């Protein structure tokens, strides 16, 4: 059990009636890594997290959390969870909420002072009923409750939703601290720049299916380069079509998507033409994301 990855799924599936929400998901998240889980709305990200926590029952396959079956609550003492739709008890104060959730975790909230300070939640705010909080403050409180007991595994569903850019920076620092002390972070997000910035590996879901899994750099590498070439005289774009996909073709300007291994050959070919300008763009994770979901 000690050697088991913090998260392991094998053929994990969930159907709501006839509608598949998640199909055949198999992945391992290794200890100490920050793992990004990307996908558009309805791709199955939240369903996956809820399956991992045993909040819903799988229609097929299995999942383990810290080496224990997902439905076993024994592992939950070491797990911090931030739901995607943050909801609290409106009449309780922030402090009462944190105290209750720490007591329910069964561990002292050793990280609370540090998190409150990093996220800018003071005693005055914590003394107020949660119903008076803005969405951003609720999200901050959500992050504190998830991480206050120093979990070994953090499952964070859309963690920066509603946070202003300054607090987002603070959150990235918190993730770095979690990683530095060996915790595993599983982070679902729509914010590609955020995933690109903080994650070691990324999985992409589409319509409940895993479409891509790898480290951020290799995902980028696997994606095609965008090549834009301008010419001093008319050329025949069709003569370049076999290098990749022509996105735009004019007599004196072409735009292509080219696999990395084809770039060298294309540049050599372009050198034989009356080339006036050449731009080769490294794909961002967003390009990779969009290519998968277009």
């Amino acid at each position, binding site marked *: 059990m000690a050697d088991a990855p913090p998260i392991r799924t094998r053929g994990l599936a969930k159907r709501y009636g006839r509608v598949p929400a998640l199909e055949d998901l198999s992945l391992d998240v290794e200890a100490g890594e920050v793992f990004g889980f990307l996908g558009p709305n309805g791709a199955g990200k939240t369903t996956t997290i809820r399956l991992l926590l045993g*909040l819903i029952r799988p229609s097929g396959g299995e999942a383990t959390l810290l080496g224990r079956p997902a439905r076993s*609550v024994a592992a939950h003492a070491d797990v911090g969870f931030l*739901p995607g739709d943050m909801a609290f008890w409106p009449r309780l104060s922030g402090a009462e909420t944190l105290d209750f*959730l720490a007591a*329910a975790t*069964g561990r002292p909230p050793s990280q609370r002072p540090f998190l409150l300070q990093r996220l800018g939640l003071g005693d005055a705010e914590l003394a107020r009923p949660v119903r008076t909080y803005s969405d951003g403050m609720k999200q901050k409180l959500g992050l504190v409750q998830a991480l206050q007991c120093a979990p070994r595994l953090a499952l964070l569903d859309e963690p920066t939703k509603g946070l202003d850019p300054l607090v987002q920076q603070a959150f990235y620092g918190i993730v770095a601290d979690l990683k530095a002390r060996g915790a595993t972070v599983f982070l679902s997000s729509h914010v590609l720049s955020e995933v690109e910035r903080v994650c070691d590996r990324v999985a992409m879901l589409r319509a409940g299916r895993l479409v891509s899994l790898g480290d951020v750099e290799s995902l980028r590498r696997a994606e095609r380069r965008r090549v834009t070439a301008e010419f001093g005289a008319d050329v025949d774009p069709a003569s370049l079509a076999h290098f990749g996909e022509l996105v735009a073709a004019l007599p004196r300007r072409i735009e292509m998507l080219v696999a990395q291994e084809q770039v060298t050959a294309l540049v050599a070919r372009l050198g034989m033409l009356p080339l006036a300008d050449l731009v080769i763009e490294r794909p961002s994770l967003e390009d990779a994301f969009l290519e998968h979901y277009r």
Partner: protein
Amino acid sequence: MIAVLFRHHVRLHRVPLLPLAAGLALFEWIMTFVAREPAVSGFLTSALRAAPPQFLALLNQELVATVSPQGIIGVGYTHPFTLVMMAVWAVRVPSAALAGEIGRGTMDLVAARPVARYQQVAAALLALLAGLAILAAAAWLGTFGGLAGRPLEGVTAWHYLPVVAALWMLFASAGAVAILVSALAREAGTAIAWTSGLMAASYVLDYAARVWSRLAPIRPLSLFRYYEPQRLLSSGLAGEDVLVFAAVAVVALAAAFVVFARRDL
């Protein structure tokens, strides 16, 4: 862990508990004043003698018992005010504890922690029973305070302990059904509607079966059939009634434990 969850429920529901308890105590205290006024007693005697049997059935009383001072105080324990006050707690707490948490989205915060599903059901049950005990005790204290202030010959508050115990058992049993409904529902509103409807139907069935003999055979289906304060005052708690309350509660709770452990949250 159950203690942590129990304290959480108490924190969420303590505010409405106070006015409910105060209302019950005040109402039963007033009933002792109604009982000791000969003019009121005489008026009630005349009024009840002239009243149609349907009205007496609503009070669920024997006429002779009702017009005695002890009986008039007993009316306080079957009065719709008392029943509604108890029902508010028996519906509110179970509905909020499970379905309410799911509907609001806070169940995920609790269930993602090392909290077993059975512990959630058990904590809801404890909060239900403790609150009902406080309300029943408040009602009795109202009677006790009224009789202590101006004693009524031959009537003591201790006579009403079996009534209070039966009142607690009636709503503990109904509350157990409410926990089952809540374990099945996804919203507090749905659970409240179903539970209130079931309680109201049970009350109406008991009343209708008393005034319409054709329905008498199905009267045992109503929980209110087993709660008769005037009989309790004369002969104490009946083992059969206690057994019915316990059986309904045990079956409903067993089903709630199973259903809630297996459902998607």
